[in-house]
Every structure is written in C-alpha cells, then in structure tokens.
C-alpha cells in the first residue's frame, strides 16, 4: 500500500478507493474507479443495472476480492484482512437474507453471535433494535410472517447489531411502498446523526437526494460524475425543466421550431423537455410562437435529470 494512502486512511477517511478494478475474465465490472468516503458521511452509488454499483459494494463489504487498484477500508486491506474489516461493518443486502425458521429476535441474536457478542449484551441490544425498527410487537413472529417493509427494517436492524462504523445499504427501499420508504429514511437519518457512515446504492433519485451528502454516478464500470446532489444538478442540469406535450405524432416536428428556447432541448417520444433557468419564460416564448401544447409542466430540475443525461435513456436489463 502506498505511504500516502496509508496516511489518508489513518485520518478521517473510512474508505479510499484508488484505481479500484474488478474483472471477471475479460469482462471489466468496475474500471479503475477512485473515491473517498469520510467518517459520518452518507455516500451514494448511483447507476443503471450493470453499472458496477453492487460489485463495488461487495468489494467494500470485503467479500469480493478486487483484481486491480487499491482499496483501504478502516485502514485495512480487504483482500488480506476481510474478517477484521467485516467485524466493524454493517451490511444490508439487496435481497433480504433473513433466517426464515427463526423468530424476529432470534435473527438478531444469531447475527450478533457471528460477531462474537455475548448473549447478555445482545439481550439488551435486541430490545433497542426492535424499538428502532418499530418491530417490538413482532419480536416473537417468524420472519416469513412479516411484510416486505418489516423484513427490510429487520434487515437494517440486524446490520446495526454490532454498532458498525460503516453501514452498507444495497438498494434499501426497493419494492417498498411510500410509507415504508419514509420510515426507513427517518431511521437512516437517525443513524447518520449518530455518526454512522452510510454507503448507499439506489435506483431512486429522490432517495439519493434525501439521504446522500455526496454521490458518484457510475456507468459501465466507470465514474461519470461525483459531487453533492445539488452540485451535480447545478453542473449537469438547469434550474428548471419545462415539459411540454404536443401529441406523440407532433413532438418531433414541433421541436424544430423550439430551437433556441432554453439552455437545452430533449425530444422524447411522448414529450419535449426544455432545460432552462425559468420554465415559465420558456412557456411564454412557445405561446408567442403560436404553438399550443396539449399539456405543460414546469418543475425543478432533479437528480433524475442528471442521471438520465449522464447514463442515457436506453433500457438496461
């Protein structure tokens, strides 16, 4: 490990990736990415399917070995000191992998035992975690009796049993209804307040905006952009977006007449997006041209606009 990397790790940096690479044969899943995550930060990994987010997560989780570059987690090398690093991590996987034969409290107990924690300590901790996850009433239920949101909260609670320094959350709210998502966000905010470093992958841009202090957008194994959500919106999008519809047969032909309006124009099959400082002013200009959109909507530019601009709109299965 280079000396400067070691020194950085010994300060407040919890994760340092330099030229981090993962290859499966000839396929490069993660291609020389660089990033640093500092203590207490909520750090996001965004990207379409196959972008390399989950592979990066697995390397940070010290379960998948890197094939190139350097990775330092909590000052240690995961390729050599995986168990030592994992002792201080909390992991919430994409798929819940709870023990379905065991009761809710038993799931927390056995997971805590894997860290070598005593039963006496775990008895108290389990009560705290059940309250945190709002699962106190379900403590004696089998996990297969829980709803999707409850399972997710239990998986998050389980990831906290060792009071981790870094909590890794791989798509924590996928498949949950809005109420369950908001409860989870609230729980994650509390953890952040507690000083826990969060690393999150998500497909939900609103979630990334809500939770992440800083994030990277990945595509095809590479980092396309890095920064705070507001910074990225400022850098890659406009303040507002005007969405106008002229009917799917007319959008393409009308767009020719709209050139010059706003900072950037994007023509989609069902609508035209005009990126501008003021959506209202653009709409006035359109009306002055004698054009009458079927519908129009002015909205604030979002991280989703940045994401789609950087990674494209092509569907990735």
């Amino acid at each position, binding site marked *: 490990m280079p000396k400067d990397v070691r020194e950085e790790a010994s300060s407040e940096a919890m994760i340092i990736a330099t030229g981090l690479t993962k290859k499966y044969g000839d396929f490069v899943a993660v291609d020389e990415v660089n990033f640093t995550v500092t203590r207490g930060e909520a750090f996001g990994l965004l990207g379409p399917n196959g972008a390399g987010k989950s592979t990066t997560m697995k390397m940070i989780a010290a379960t998948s070995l890197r094939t190139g570059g350097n990775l330092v987690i909590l000052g240690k090398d995961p390729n050599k000191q995986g*168990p030592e690093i994992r002792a201080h991590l909390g992991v919430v*996987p994409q798929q819940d992998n709870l023990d379905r034969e065991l009761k809710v409290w038993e799931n927390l107990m056995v997971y805590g035992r*894997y860290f*070598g924690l005593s039963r006496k300590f775990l008895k108290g901790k389990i009560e705290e975690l059940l309250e945190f996850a709002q699962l106190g009433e379900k403590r004696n239920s089998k996990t297969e009796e829980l709803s999707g949101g409850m399972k997710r909260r239990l998986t998050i609670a389980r990831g906290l049993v060792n009071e981790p320094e870094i909590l890794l959350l791989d798509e924590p709210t996928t498949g949950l209804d809005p109420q369950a998502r908001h409860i989870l966000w609230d729980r994650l905010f509390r953890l952040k307040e*507690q000083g826990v470093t969060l690393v999150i992958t998500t497909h939900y841009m609103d979630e990334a905006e809500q939770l992440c202090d800083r994030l990277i957008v990945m595509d095809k194994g590479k980092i396309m952009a890095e920064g705070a959500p507001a910074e990225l919106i400022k850098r890659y999008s406009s303040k507002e977006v005007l969405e106008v519809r002229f009917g799917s047969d007319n959008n393409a032909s009308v767009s020719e007449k709209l050139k010059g309006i706003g900072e950037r124009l994007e023509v989609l099959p069902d609508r035209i997006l005009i990126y501008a400082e003021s959506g209202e002013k653009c709409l006035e200009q359109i009306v002055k041209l004698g054009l009458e959109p079927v519908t129009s909507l002015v909205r604030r530019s979002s991280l989703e606009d940045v994401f789609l601009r950087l990674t494209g709109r092509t569907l990735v299965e």
Partner: protein
Amino acid sequence: MAPEVRAETKMTWVGAAKLVDPQVSIRFGAFFVAENRLRNMAKWWKSIIAFGLGNPSLYLLSIGIGVGSLVDSSLGPNAIDNVSYLTFLAPALLVSAGIQGAMDEVTWPTVEGFVWTRTFFSMNSTSITGRQIVSGILMAAMARCVFQVFLYELCLLAFGAISWQSIPILLLVSATAGFGFSAIMLAFSASIKDDDGVFALVGRFIITPMFMFSGTFYPITSMPIYLQWIGWISPQWHGTNLGRALSYGSPVEPWLQGIHWALLLMLAVIGITWANRVFESRLAK
C-alpha cells in the same frame, strides 16, 4: 394542532471499534455457525425425535424380527457370524442412521443457505468465513448424527440386538461413517445451483443402492463379484464391517479394519477440502 412527535429512546452506541473484537469470531466463528444450525434444528425437535425413534422401531419390527425369524428358521440360529440375524443387522442399521442423520443436515439446508434464503451470504457479511461455515455445518450435522444414532442404539438395546458395552464403539463407527459421507454431500450440495430434483436422484441412485448392496442384510461376499464393488466404495459397507468387527467380534482382519477407518476419514478430508473451495468461491462472487 401541534405535530405528533414520538418519544423514542436513543440507542446506546459504543461503536464496533470498541465493541467487537474480530479475533473472537476468527477463532470461534465455526462454533457460532453451529449454534445457529442447532437453533434451527431445535425448531424441528419433535420431527427429529419422532423420526429417530419411529424409523428404527418400524425397521426392527419388520426386517429385524420379521425377516430375522425367517432367516433364523431357514438357516438355523446364529447362522451368520455366529450371532442372531438381528445382531448381525444392528451395526448396518446404525451406520445407515448415522449417514442419514448427518446427510439431512448438509443437503437441503445447504441449498437453502446459498439459494433460497441466502443465509450463508449473511453469515459471510460478518467476520465469518466460508471455511468456518463448512466447519459449523459439519459440527451441527455430527450433533444430529450422534443424537440419531444414540436413539437408534436405545431401540436396538430394547430389542436385545446389541449389548450396552458396544454402544460407544458403534456410536463412534456410525458417526465416522456419517462424517465422511456428509462431508462429501456438503461439498456436492454447495455445488448445485438449485435442487431441480437432484437430491431425489441421489436418493435413488446412490443412497438406496449403497444401503442395499453394502452387506447390510447379508454378507457382501454372498453377492456376485460384479456387484461387490458397490460395497467396496461405499462408506455404508466400511462402517458396517467395522461395526460388526468391533461390536460382536465378526472376523475382520486388523489390516482391513485399518482400511475401513482410513477410507472413512479420507472421505471426510476430501469432502471438507472440496467444500471449503466451493464455499469460498461461491461466497466471493
């Protein structure tokens, strides 16, 4: 109206750096895995006991006593190995129980851990390594194996098929056979991506022939030579022959007894080495 605010206790938080000593799991991780498996097994304690007592009772009544009476009346008493047919049969039944008991804990639960509930991945997200999972599963499987064989021995004792003095050595032999075979089956189970009926095939084409052609019901030498090889490669025969020699003194040369022990232990070593590799590579993907 003022917004509702839920009063909540703040979590105590020492932090993993002070709370968790990685060396504890590095040293004892396999025991924590075994603890989990035993906790899972405890959920099925009624079935395990019912199977452990019901299976031998039915076997002893139907085959041991039923077929035994026929054999003893046809060939005369103590015609095989100078003992009753039931005594001749007992070591084979115990080895079979040991193999079956251990196998139950390494087949379906392994597919479940990798595919259905993916609990092995949750274990591996802590300090627990693939090798520790292998060791923990085998420890728990051996606990089940010893328990099941012991229950069987109690039944055999009640039927007068074995002496109480032979209980420890028959337990050791049966557990060793169960250990060797379950290690191989653990590695095999870890290699499959989904069940797809593969365990039914294993049952039909490996377990049943192994049980039928390994000198369980008659000496292996009674079979045509072209069928005897099934016994030679079968842990069932090695365990059975050893059990007969060590419990009631069936004439088995010491060198052959050595080969029986060596083969059963070799199966365990091969199985564990293979399982370690499969677990480590599958968990790292």
